[in-house]
Each structure stands twice: as C-alpha cells, then as structure tokens.
C-alpha cells in the first residue's frame, strides 16, 4: 500500500484544447497510504479520467504521478502494481475460485505453498474459503466482485486498490451486504483504496475521505462529516445531503447580516461582498413557538411525508427553504410558523464558496 501523490496532473482528450476545457484540470492531491478514498461526482466530472490515470489506462497530458515517491507516470498498468474492481464483475471464466485468486501470484511466480497459504487467508476474509474448488463463473455477481477484490488483496504489496462503481450491476438487495463486506475486508487488509462512484450514499458510507468532483476539479476533499457540516461550496451543499442544503440570499447592513430585515447571527466572520448567501441544512432548522434571536416567521407552502420525518417547505423572506421535522411532531396546524436558524449551523457563502474556512483542495 502506497501513498499516492498526484502532482499537477491534468488531462484533455482533445489535443490543444485550452485548459478551461480539459476533462481534468491540473490538480495536486495526496492520497495517504492505507486510507480509503471515494471520488464522487456526476457523470462527466472527470472522476473516471482520474481513475484511468491512476490505473495507467490514460497517460495524463501533464503532471506526474508518484506511488510512494517514485514516478509511475510513464509506466504501463502492468508495472504499477495496482488492483482494480470494475463495474462488471471480471473473473477468469475458465478457472475455479482458487485459480482466480491464485492467478496474480502465479503470474508473479510465487511458489506453490506460499500461494496456497495466501489464497486461503484471503478467501477466508472474503467468505469464499468453502467454495474454492467451484468454477468461478457459477458464482453470483456479488461474489464475483469479491473475487476481483481478492485478486488485488492476495498481492501483499499492492500499491492501491481501485474500484470503479463496483455495485452498478449488483442486485439492489445485495448492494448493502456487498458494500458492507467490501468495507470490512478493506478495514482488515488496509490497502489504499480509491473508490469511484456517482452515488453519494455509497461514497460517504464507504470512504474515510470523500473527494467531490465537478467539471474536472476536486471541489472538496474531506471526511463525510466535514462535507455534510461544512460544504465548501453551494454545489457540495446541494450534492451532499437529502434534502439539499438550504441557501438564502441575505443582505449585509453595516457589519451585520440581515434576513427579511432582521439580523441573522452567525458563528463566523462574514466577508465583505456584494452578494452573500447563507446555507443551513434542513435538519438544523428548528420550528419554535416563541420569537427569539435568529427566529424568523415563515409561511408553510408544502408538506412531504417521508415516513419518519416530514419535510416542510416554507417561505422565508420570499425564499423557499426546507425544514425537516420528526413525524411525531405532526403537521403544523396553522400556515404561519416560526423557525430558528441556529447560529452555529448557518454558514456564509460568497460566489458559491464557503467564506469562512480555507477552501480545501481547490487548485489555484
């Protein structure tokens, strides 16, 4: 397992295109050894390009890629010592489970006894130890994905395990259990993992750190909690969390931020900018009975029953926001309610970017 340094790596598929149009804008990232990372973003965000650069399928137009400090930019896939799990389960049809798992080791000419020991160890972790003699093609898709993973794990020196949307073709009912097993196994073997997905749930459930990508850039890197609590941009606020983060345009009068003519207190200094938005998660907006600081009157526009919670859509100062309330609180009887925007949970955004904390991982 290796530390991966992505140094000014950028790529374009059309030669000579200006950098603004590159599929992957030049970026500098460090993925620490033995951690799990998820690349998440909508299709076309550059996550697959980045993955292909890591696997060696794509040679970047510029920049260097270092595995534990050594430059692998020019090396072919075969020489990079990585493992990869693909969207479609890839197994060797003509081989048994055992032979599949032993294959990378046989290619490396390990001796028989050593192979045997290692394969059994990995198979046990995969929960496939009792099926080693079966033809691999008879397994279900989720077990095949485990074999793919296992082929990477048998190699004790693998630099990184890349996973490219590994749950795409898995039956919805099995997705959870497979994700769980993959996570358990990676926690046991602790390789460096880069997991690509377009599904935020998967990314946040799986990875220790999530990299949100958009338009060829990594717009935020952080733990799931960081992404949720402090989205670096309005996009991340929208992209992470369901329902999405509420954004309200506020005014700045003197040193004060006001909303609907009332002061809005925040735990942060607010920069001086012509257009300021504040973000607040629906989970943190509270319905209160009494006016107080940071409490605003609103009008209820709609109610959605999600089961355990209801999502109220309310109008605040001419802007719609969502409020999540527990089911047992019932639906407000009147159309007018008061909501509190908790001081510590209201974040300022300028030009779509969080304006308090340094912007993480934003290449400049």
């Amino acid at each position, binding site marked *: 397992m290796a530390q991966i340094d992505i140094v000014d790596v950028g790529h374009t598929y059309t030669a000579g295109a200006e950098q603004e149009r590159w599929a992957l804008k030049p970026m500098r990232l460090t993925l620490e050894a033995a951690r799990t990372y998820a690349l998440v973003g909508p*299709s076309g965000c550059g996550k697959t390009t980045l993955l292909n650069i890591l696997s060696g399928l794509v040679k970047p137009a510029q920049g260097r890629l270092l595995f534990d400090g050594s430059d692998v930019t020019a090396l072919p896939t075969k020489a990079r010592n990585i493992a990869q799990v693909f969207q479609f389960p890839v197994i060797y049809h003509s081989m048994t489970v055992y032979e599949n798992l032993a294959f990378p080791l046989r290619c490396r000419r390990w001796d028989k006894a050593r192979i045997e020991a290692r394969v059994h160890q990995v198979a046990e972790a995969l929960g496939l130890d009792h099926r080693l003699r079966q033809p691999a093609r008879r397994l279900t898709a989720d077990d095949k994905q485990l074999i793919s993973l296992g082929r990477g794990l048998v190699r004790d020196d693998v630099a990184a395990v890349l996973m490219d949307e590994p749950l795409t073709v898995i039956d919805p009912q099995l997705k959870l259990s497979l994700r769980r097993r993959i996570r358990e196994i990676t926690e046991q073997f602790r390789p460096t993992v880069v997991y690509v997905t377009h599904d935020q749930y998967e990314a946040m459930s799986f990875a220790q750190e999530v990299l949100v990508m958009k338009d060829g850039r990594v717009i935020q890197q952080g733990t*799931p909690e960081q992404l949720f609590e402090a989205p670096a941009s309005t996009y991340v606020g929208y992209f992470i969390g369901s329902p999405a983060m509420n954004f309200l345009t506020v005014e700045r009068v003197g040193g004060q931020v006001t909303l609907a003519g009332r002061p809005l207190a925040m735990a942060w200094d607010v920069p001086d900018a012509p257009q300021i938005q504040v973000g607040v998660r629906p989970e943190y907006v509270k319905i209160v009975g009494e006016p107080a600081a940071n409490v605003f009157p609103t009008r209820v526009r709609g109610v959605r*029953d999600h089961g355990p919670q209801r999502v109220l859509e309310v109008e605040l100062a001419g802007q719609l926001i969502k409020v999540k309330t527990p089911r047992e609180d019932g639906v407000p009887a009147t159309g007018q309610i008061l909501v509190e925007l908790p001081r510590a949970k209201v974040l300022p955004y300028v030009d779509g970017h969080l304006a308090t904390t340094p912007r993480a991982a934003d290449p400049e």
Partner: protein
Amino acid sequence: MTLDATDLSLTVDGVDHLKDVTASFQPGRLHTVIGRTLAGKSTLLRVLAGLQRVDSGSLTRHGADFLTTPVWRRDTAMVYQQFINYPHLTVFDNVAFPLKRAGVARDEIRRRVQESLARVGLTEFRRRRPSQLSGGQQQRVALARALVRGAGILLLDEPFANLDYKLREQLREEFKTLFSDQGDAVVIYTTTEPAEAMMLGDVVLVMHEGRIIQTGPPGEVYDRPATTTVARIINDPPMNIFTGRIAGGRIAVDDLQVTRVPAHLADLPDGTYQFGLRAPDIALASAGLQAEVTFVEISGSETFVHLALSGTGFVVQIDGVHDIALGDRVSMRLRPERLFAFDHSGALVRSPSSGPGSPEGR
C-alpha cells in the same frame, strides 16, 4: 371508471408471481405498490397492461372484462425502470409516437408534444436521440410520452430506481406536479422505497411474494403495519424486529432487560412477542445498552448505525452525517413509547399510535 382485479394468480415454474391479487384501482388517485424486488409488482403492472397473461382471476374496467382486451386497446401508458424509448426516433418523435398512432391531427400533436416537453424541461433537446441524453433526461422523455396521451391508466414501474439519488430526489419532487392534472386516470406506481410510497401515494398497496398483504392510505399503513413483513417493507432502514418477553412490567430480550413496558402496551398479557422499533426511535446515548458498531451507512442526511446487541442486530438512525468507526462500543437507548408489538405469527397487536386496549386489526 375503476380498474378491478379479482383473485389474479400466476404461477411460473412453481413460483407464485401473483397469488390471489384482489385490488380496486380508483380513477384520479395515485396508487403506490411497494414491495421488495421480485415481490410481483412488475408482474402486476404487466398484467394490468395486458403484456402478461394470468392463470386465473379476473380484471374488469368500468365493470367490463379487461383481460381479453389487447394491449393496444387498453388506453394504458407505462414507464419502465430501464430508460425505454424508441432509439431510432428523436425526442420529439418519441413523444409524438402515441399521438400519431391515435390519429391526432398534426397541429394538435405539435402543440401537445411541445407542451409536454416543456413540462419535463426537455424543449431544447427535442431534436436529439435518446442515446444522446443522460439517464435522467431519457426517463423524462419516457415520462413525457406517458403523459402526453392523457391515457386512462398510467403505470410506472419503479421509474426512478435507476437514477442516482439527487436526480431521484428531484424527479420525485416534480412528479406530483407532473401528474396533478391527469384527471380521471388510474395511476399506479411501484417502488421499493418507503419514502416514495409515503410521499407520492394516495393509496399504498404492500406486496410480498405475489400477494397484496396490506392496502390503505400511506399514513395508515405506516402507522399500523399489519404484520412484521409490512413493517419491514414500509420502513427504510427496515424496522428493527426482535423477539422479547413482557414480564413484570419490563421487556426482556433473552436475559437482558431492555426497557420498561410503555403505556400503550401496558395492558398486554405477559408472554413472548415480537417487538418492532424504527431505526430513528433508537438513540445513541451516553449510557444505556452496550452495543458494538458493526457497520455504518450514510443515506442522504442520515447516518444508519448497525449495532450488535448480544447477538441481535439493531439499526439506529441518527440525523446528520457522523464519522463513526466500525467496532466502536456505544450505548443505545430504545424509545419504549414507539414500540410496536406483534404476535408470534407476525400480526400486529399494538402500535404506538393506538391507545391502550384498542385492538389492532383490519
């Protein structure tokens, strides 16, 4: 104008795909059919559409036999889970297709197609082919095509299941508006997700292994699931079900006292029950039952923590996203006032929404 199914049954290779399905679908209402994969939801829709024969049972529309009516005369539109459009036609022609078949005048077609496309937000894509669109856009085309005809029966087979969750969220939001003016159409929507059933449905039908096991308004089904199976299906994450004993005013799982008997269960005789508790109704606390974190999932804005409590698994839902490491030991606290009680066969005995002494049942 109702669509009535009576005792529809279909067995293929010894497996029941439909078993004595009886349901009445009302005009102007949105019915959600919820069930796990392969519960028979799609089969039911296909039977209603005329794409699948049945072994027995009857289907009537306006009181007249509908089973013998061929597909193309059933006045039925359908949206599939897979993004199914005519690959060779442009977006415009895709939407115009059913109108052309119905012999609608050219100007009228143009007007209605444009209107429909505008409603799903695809006006600027009308000249593209489906393959040049994203998954979400493709499904919007399918929706537009289903809508444009004003069909009497509208079937939607997990239409958003293959979209990623942001899109799913968005289309779900739009859905009610899109279908608000379908007038007297019978709308049937299948899903595996409780949130969709809750949000969209006027009526929820819960399907399991080819049978409809409960029917009712969403809130009703949610608050009073008839069986443990319904309780699991209608909740995400599935309701925690555990077997315990009521004895001496306490509820115990094996030898572990987990909680006191809440008021609404107070009059239940001592004995063994299956208890149900929703994931949000368990809290992580500083003190309480000691459990080990086996898995953590993050779903939207919630964190689902899977816990093992002396061999029994529990799922706890907490608001917000939290970094919790696997293997941690945490304390959890059940909210006894939210407990459901089921008998050994799984039938609901008492729910939190019913007062003490009021018997459950249908």
